[in-house]
């Protein structure tokens, strides 16, 4: 029974991974690509790791899979924010259909 639940988790994770990478190819801008790919792929990989834990069970490999989930949830948003900050500071323009740019307004407010 837990094998079937684990396989369902792995299937959900594969769907999230594939659509995240499709967003990485199709979207028009660095920031759009970053938010689509990071959120989808992190959730998908965490789902695959949780399915691995359900199939393998309480032994060394399963507990290492849980540890890997903790690492991913801690590190992936930090890396994404660092990339977005670096890209904005290095002067990459937003897509022409973008509505608002709060970070530029904040930097103008700091300069005054």
């Amino acid at each position, binding site marked *: 029974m837990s*094998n079937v639940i684990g*396989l369902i988790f*792995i*299937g959900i*994770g*594969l769907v999230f*991974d*594939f659509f*995240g*990478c*499709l967003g*990485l*190819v199709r979207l028009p801008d*660095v920031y759009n*690509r*970053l938010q689509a*790919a*990071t959120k989808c*792929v*992190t959730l*998908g*990989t965490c789902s*695959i*790791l949780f399915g*691995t834990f359900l*199939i*393998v069970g309480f*032994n*060394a*490999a399963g507990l*290492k*899979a849980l*540890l*890997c989930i903790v*690492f*991913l949830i801690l*590190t*992936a948003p*930090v*890396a*994404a924010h*660092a*990339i977005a*900050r*670096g*890209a904005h*500071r*290095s002067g*990459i323009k937003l897509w022409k259909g973008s509505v608002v740019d709060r970070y530029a307004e904040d930097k103008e407010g700091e300069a005054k």
Partner: protein
Amino acid sequence: MKKFRWLIGTIILVGILILIIVRPLPFLFYPDLPYLKFLGRAIYIIILACFLCLYRVWRGPTGADRIVAIDIMGILIVGLCAILTISTNRSWYIDIGIAWALQSFISTLAFSKYLEGRDFDE
């Protein structure tokens, strides 16, 4: 011209998906695994997603696109290591996954510092 390129990309993607459904990956498994075909197709789908990331590395207009694609491919390979742990029944693949996650995080932070135009000291 743009619609023509869109059509070619859609045809290639649908063709690879049909190949995935028709024949699963025959090696990398121990033989009496009950759900062998599902895991073989799972490995195929993750490799396809990695090739989409490599396309973004190849055609990225700026450097930040390439850094994003490399970061995403690191996270995908952690999932590939987890599936290999089930299919080959060897527990050291997940060790490779943990080490790959930490290394990818540190290298992404260093690349974003480089993109910002500062030194690594501060």
